[in-house]
């Protein structure tokens, strides 16, 4: 079995202001203390005593998520997830993540990505095919010839199996500076996994609109694919809703970076890559009929990049399916959609369609701990009557092996 989507980076690689921004500055400088207290054994026991598990299940799950994220080494996170897979002989795709540029203060303590990679490379050296590390790329770290040299240097070690990008951290996947990565991946028929859901972490700095730009340069400037993207950007720039001003607005604005259509110019230009639009758009998009339920007109506009037409909305789940049918180099995974069992019938339908051979099993450890623990997600999937035994095998064995 291969789990094609897990993260084992710990708090050490997250910018210092990340948690504070997430808590909207409520806890200020004491955020670290309270988060540690909340995630400690005593904190979790206290929540249990207070009945929080029943009253505030989200809080207790978040405490568990923090507890794992605060593990001291990446190795410990890997050991933690592996406990849930005992007897299943599982390998993991380790998606590294460069978060040095996701905030204004990201580089305060110096760049952290090289340390993260050094530890991952050591894990790979020791564990061999138990893990398949993917190299995280961010065009603000390196671009052009420097990125080219860096990728080749890292690849020469033989420790990496693919690339990972996370556009919501503040860049477009078609960014011209990423050209060396796409060309290298295409020439070597390598997999690239990208975050493709509206939710998760995003750029938290103050300059999001500078990063968004108006007509960003693309690795494939063909107007057939770029014009709709430019129009979407302009539409959202013109939108003057309340979300424009606060930090929370960043989360909505960063959808411009993550949008599935941003990958069309890449899929056309680099036919030999294996591009995985991870999460299948996210559970919320799989169950899109609930997406606009109870939302105000402004919220609909924020969600839909300024369009605001719920009736004409095509979910990211549907978009990805259309793109997979159109481009044979387009893949997806079902990580962080499996955590919601209501998605199973729809995912099962996909497994009976012609694109079934490019859907991967993954869980998005340890992010999914915010909703469910790894063992529950795995057990729910393995016991789900929605998927046949062959479909399950295809998801976690056949497709994943072809991918990595």
């Amino acid at each position, binding site marked *: 079995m291969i789990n094609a989507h897990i993260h084992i980076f710990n708090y*050490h690689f997250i910018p210092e202001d990340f948690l504070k921004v997430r808590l909207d500055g409520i806890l200020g400088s004491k955020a670290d*203390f309270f988060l*540690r*207290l909340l*995630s*400690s*054994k*005593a904190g979790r026991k206290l929540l249990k005593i207070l009945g929080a598990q029943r009253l505030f299940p989200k809080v207790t799950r978040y405490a568990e998520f923090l*507890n794992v994220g*605060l*593990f*001291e*080494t*990446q*190795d*410990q996170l890997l050991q*933690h997830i592996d406990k849930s897979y005992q007897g299943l002989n599982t390998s993991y795709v380790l998606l590294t993540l460069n978060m040095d540029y996701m905030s204004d203060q990201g580089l305060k*303590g*110096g760049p*952290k990505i*090289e*340390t993260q990679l*050094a*530890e991952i*490379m*050591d894990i790979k*050296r020791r564990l061999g095919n138990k893990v398949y590390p993917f190299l995280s790329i961010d065009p603000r770290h390196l671009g052009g010839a420097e990125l080219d040299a860096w990728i080749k240097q890292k690849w*020469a*070690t*033989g420790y990496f199996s693919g690339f990972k990008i996370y556009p919501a951290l503040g860049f477009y996947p078609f960014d011209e500076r990423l050209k060396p990565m796409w060309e290298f991946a295409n020439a070597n028929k390598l997999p690239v996994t990208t975050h493709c859901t509206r939710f998760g972490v995003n750029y938290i700095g103050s300059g999001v609109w500078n990063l968004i730009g108006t007509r960003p340069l693309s690795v494939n400037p063909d107007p057939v694919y770029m014009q709709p993207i430019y129009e979407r950007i302009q539409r959202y720039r013109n939108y003057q809703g309340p979300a424009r001003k606060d930090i929370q607005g960043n989360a909505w604005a960063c959808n411009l970076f993550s949008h599935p259509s941003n990958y069309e110019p890449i899929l056309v230009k680099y036919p030999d890559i294996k591009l995985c639009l991870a999460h299948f758009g996210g559970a919320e998009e799989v169950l899109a009929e609930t997406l606009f339920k109870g939302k105000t007109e402004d919220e609909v506009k924020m969600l839909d990049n300024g369009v605001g037409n719920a009736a004409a909305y095509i979910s990211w789940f549907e978009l990805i399916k259309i793109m997979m049918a159109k481009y044979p180099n387009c893949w997806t995974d079902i990580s962080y959609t499996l955590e919601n069992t209501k998605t199973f019938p729809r995912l099962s339908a996909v497994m009976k369609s012609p694109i079934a051979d490019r859907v991967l099993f993954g869980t998005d450890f340890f992010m999914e701990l915010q909703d469910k623990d790894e063992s529950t997600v795995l057990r729910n999937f393995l016991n789900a009557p929605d998927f046949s035994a062959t479909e399950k095998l295809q998801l976690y064995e056949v497709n994943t092996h072809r991918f990595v």
Partner: protein
Amino acid sequence: MSLTIFFEVILSLVVIYALLSILVSLLNEFLISITNTRGKVLFAELQTMLKDHYNLDYAYLLYSHPLVSELPRKNKSHHPVWIEASTFAPAFIQTIGNLAVTYQLPMATDEKNGTAELMTRFRLYAEQMQGSRLKDMLLNFHSVANGDYAKLEAQLKDWFNNQMASLTFEYKRKQRNKLLFFGFVITLFLNVDSIYLAQRLAKDPIMRTGVSSKSTAVLEHFKPMVDSLQAQYPKDKTIQQNAAKFNQDYNLIMKQLDSANVPLGYSKTSVPYVWFSKDKQKISSDFRKELSFMNVFLYLAGLAISMFSLSRGAPFWFELLSKFVRIKSGGGKS
């Protein structure tokens, strides 16, 4: 007041402060054990010591080394509270040496001869680092060791010990505010008015003798606890178990003070309640029972003195107590 009475009052106050400051120190230790302050301060110090903007975070990588990551700690998200120099040096040399293998540096691994010797790998990695002060230091250490592993290890141990000496000073400085806070908590919780205590001790020979006569017993009984404050809340115990231990220590200390009739805590006859009592006249004591500016000022001043005194921590007061006991017993050296 005769000199003997004055000495006994001071000695009694030292005994009271010594006992109460144990509570302050224990509370501080309890908080440190929950928040893993020592582990965090140690990690931060190592990050400063091994700081290298141009290369990697070697403190983080050092903590991933099994010699350090397997050190006992409360849980996986807590740093170890202390690392011995004899652990630091080999773990650091191996961390640097292993990076040469991880990065597959030429000559670090050889298909024919396998992995190169550790000293060679240490040098190979240091040589390929981008220019930095740490790189210079590592190459200098290696050069001085001249191929002798023991010499390299000895240099790293000295470096580590020197850094940790300054860390201890800095750590104690940072603890002052916390001790002040807990001094404040204990003072308010037990209503410790130093001026009132001194006045009562001066006027009440039974109480004075009762407290001062305990000095030797207090020193002998509690000194071992004060000497091992750090070990009072073991890392392998849960917070509940440690809280129970604190409660046990608290009761033991309060028993000592109660048996000597030390006026602590709140009652209808004590300041500040007595100021608002309707039956003021029935209370036999004439001690500051009227609400006046001077009495309020003296009460607040008494609390402030207690707070600052207790915030000195138990080791300070026990050191002072042992000096007093030596004087009392004729000045002999213990």
